[in-house]
């Protein structure tokens, strides 16, 4: 069955550094991949989408890569800030349905 793996351990980094989160998947060939931010007790918020034929996408301080050979996506936040602290969810899509990973909690310390 399809499996999405995100590091279940929290990622703790210092303000100003680059945070890198990993999403690995197996038994799936998604047409696209999305990243979401989720704050405690709230619904996820869409951040970025990258398609299977794209290698990299950027939006402000965010960058996403997608390697369909390695079956992996990397999500980078540059110049991280305490306000970036949240859980980040990876989601794989095919047609109109998304399957989510469990997310990685990012904590940015001043």
């Amino acid at each position: 069955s399809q499996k999405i793996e995100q590091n279940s351990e929290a990622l703790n980094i210092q303000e100003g550094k680059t945070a890198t989160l990993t999403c690995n998947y197996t038994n799936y060939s998604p047409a696209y991949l999305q990243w979401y931010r989720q704050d405690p007790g709230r619904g996820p918020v869409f951040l970025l989408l990258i398609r299977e034929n794209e290698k990299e996408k950027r939006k402000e301080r965010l960058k996403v890569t997608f390697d369909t050979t390695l079956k992996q996506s990397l999500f980078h936040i540059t110049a991280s800030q305490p306000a970036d602290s949240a859980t980040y969810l990876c989601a794989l899509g095919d047609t109109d349905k998304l399957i989510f990973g469990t997310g990685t909690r990012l904590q940015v310390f001043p």
Partner: protein
Amino acid sequence: DAMVIQNPRYQVTQFGKPVTLSCSQTLNHNVMYWYQQKSSQAPKLLFHYYDKDFNNEADTPDNFQSRRPNTSFCFLDIRSPGLGDAAMYLCATSLQGDYGYTFGSGTRLTVV
């Protein structure tokens, strides 16, 4: 502002007592989704609608039903809630295709 609104934010129901959660949207998106999310777990898709076409996930229990009377509204009915159904229920909308989802703030369901 265009948005997805879920009511109520918190719902407490008794074991076995039917409960309905509601979702409305002002985005005019044709696709609506219901996800269940338990603590520290991934959101799990229960079902979704393309317009009025209902699509159930194979592993969604029969205890969960849904209605979409029009484009703007969607309801999740839990016929006989069990303790294991306590979770955050998330409604989301999107346009058809590889577009990002817009989620509501969720309804936290407690079963006592």
